[in-house]
C-alpha cells in the first residue's frame, strides 16, 4: 500500500462514489452498471491489499456473474 499512496485513497473514494450512484439512478440498468463498476473497483482494491486470489474471484463472480444475473432479472421484470 505504501507503494502508491494516491491510488489507495482514490480507489476507495471511487468505490463509494459508484455505490452512491447505485442509490441515485432510477434506471435499473444504469444502476447495475454502477454496481459492476463498484465490483471492479473493489477487486482493484483487493489487489492493492495483496489479495490477488480474492481480487480474481471478485472480478469474475462479483462483477461478471452478478451483473449478468441482474441484467437477466431486469429483462424479465421492469426497468424502473
Amino acid at each position: 500500500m505504501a507503494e502508491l499512496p494516491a491510488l489507495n485513497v482514490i480507489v476507495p473514494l471511487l468505490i463509494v462514489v459508484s455505490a452512491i450512484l447505485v442509490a441515485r439512478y432510477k434506471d435499473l440498468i444504469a444502476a447495475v452498471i454502477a454496481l459492476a463498476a463498484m465490483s471492479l473497483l473493489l477487486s482493484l482494491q483487493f489487489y492493492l491489499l495483496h489479495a490477488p486470489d480474492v481480487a480474481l474471484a471478485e472480478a469474475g463472480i462479483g462483477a461478471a456473474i452478478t451483473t449478468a444475473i441482474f441484467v437477466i432479472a431486469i429483462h424479465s421484470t421492469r426497468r424502473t
Partner: protein
Amino acid sequence: MSQLVLNAPFVAVAALTCVACYIIMTQKNLIKIVMGVVILQGAVNLFLVTLGYRIGGVAPIYTETSGTLMVLPVPQALTLTNIVIGVSTTALMLALIVLIYRHTGETDAEKSRRMKG
C-alpha cells in the same frame, strides 16, 4: 497523511455500509434492495480483507517467502467463501423477484406484498 492512507479502506467500509443501509431502508424497488444487499456484502468483504492487511506483507500465495511478512491468509479465505455465498443468495433473491413479478406484475415492495397483519 499516511494515517489517512492506511485507514482509507476502513472509511470506505463505513461509507459503503451507510449507503447500503440507506438503499435497503428507503428504496421500494425490490431489485434495488438486492443491489443494496450486494453493496453491503462488498463492504463486509472489504472489511475482512483490510483486517488481514499487513504493511509490507506479500500475498499469501507464495510458499517460498524467505521469512518476509505475509498478509494474513485466513480473512482472504473467509472473503472468498463470502463472495461465493453472496452470489448464490443474490441469484435466489432475483429468481424470487421474477416469480413475484409474474404473479403480481409489480416489483415494488409495497404494491407486491400480499400478506400483512
